[in-house]
């Protein structure tokens, strides 16, 4: 029986997980107000497709959960859906031009909202201990239900991050030498 992923795809996924772990550190080193912890997932989505990216996202958060705290593991479905939607968008030509990349980032953010909102609202009571809790409390105070407040806040917090991550991954994959990108036969079109 043929394995689900070739050895090359497995090593690419391993590199993608390591990118997620290290490039998040780069964002904090540059003191940028974004997470950048899904760039590896986007790169795998562009080079190996949605299923490999889904597994990359889930594995990243499971490893983070083991290394730091189970909070990251609780958000593993969110990381998985980022990879899945980014991979599907890439397959559909969503990374062929700048406007398409922005639209793909918007779709990824919407998917994140759908999956992350119930986790954040029911598992953590709508709070995460970040400044975003103030917006949840404010929206709650102006009449929104808790789940609506959490959804709006998750959308706002994630939009900038996912747009920057998608743009960065797209720029990096486009800039790969042709000799190198040819070694990934399942890569999506990026121009």
């Amino acid at each position, binding site marked *: 029986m043929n*394995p*689900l*992923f*070739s*050895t*090359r795809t*497995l*090593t*690419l*996924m*391993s*590199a993608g*997980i*390591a*990118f997620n*772990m*290290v*490039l998040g550190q*780069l*964002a904090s*080193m*540059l*003191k*940028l107000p974004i997470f*950048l912890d899904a*760039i590896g997932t986007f*790169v795998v989505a562009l*080079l190996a497709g949605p299923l490999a990216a889904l*597994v990359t996202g889930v*594995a990243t958060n499971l*490893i983070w959960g*083991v*290394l*730091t*705290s*189970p*909070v990251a593991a609780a958000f593993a479905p969110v990381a998985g859906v980022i990879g899945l939607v980014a991979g599907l968008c890439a397959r559909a030509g969503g990374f062929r031009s700048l406007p398409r990349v922005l639209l793909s980032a918007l779709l990824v953010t919407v998917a994140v909202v759908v999956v992350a909102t119930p986790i954040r609202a029911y598992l*953590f*009571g*709508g*709070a*995460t*201990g*970040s400044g975003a*809790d*103030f917006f*949840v*409390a*404010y929206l*709650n*105070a*102006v009449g929104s239900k808790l789940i609506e407040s959490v959804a709006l806040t998750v959308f706002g917090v994630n939009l900038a991050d996912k747009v*920057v991550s998608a743009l*960065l991954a797209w*720029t*990096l994959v486009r*800039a*790969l030498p042709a000799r*190198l990108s040819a*070694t990934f036969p399942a890569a999506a079109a990026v121009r």
Partner: protein
Amino acid sequence: MHPFTGFALLPPLLLLTLRLTDARALAALLVVLLVLVWMGGEHRVRLRRWALLMLPLAAGLWLVHGRYLDSLVFGADVADRPQRLYAAALLWLRVGCLLAGAQVALRLAPPARLTRALFASRLPPSVAYLLASPLLLSVQLRRRLAEVTEAQRARGVDPAAPWPQRARTLIALAGPLVVWTLSDVGERANALDARAFRSVPCRTTLDAPAFTARDRALLAAALAAFVLVAGSWLWR
């Protein structure tokens, strides 16, 4: 102790925190778990990590569930505030217990031992590789990132510049790292295939962590605790 044993203690703990509905009982459990964290190695780092997550979460839950903005900004009267805050406190205690329990388990599974245990485990080789290899690769990538940062600094990239300029340096710093690592992907895959990766389900490991009688006893205790708590829940 085997690195996997500690993780077996988490499912009964999760069930127990859900089963307990009294704040005093949960607080007592939390104190016990924090004492266990304090008694272990690296307790300062682990307690700090716990506090850095839990104290801001307490503030967030207090703000969201106490509905203080309703009173302060809009002058609304929140009659059920004590009940809301009690529910939030229960949630905070549950999350706190789980995080403290996870710190106890993580103390038993430092990354180096966990990597060896994963490679020596009965997991399929591809799953073990996917979970263990990023731990090794990320150490190399951090070193490479430091080298790339140093090289780009010499070329005039300033990681301490105003933020629009810092955002532009992202490509300059991440680009070489990504291209460098992706160039290695093919070589790594060839090296693995050359060593018959996945051709047999079992691998030989020189220094696999031992699974002792103590580990077996702890696993049996964790399973018994899980059945006991689940049974008490269903009985009720």
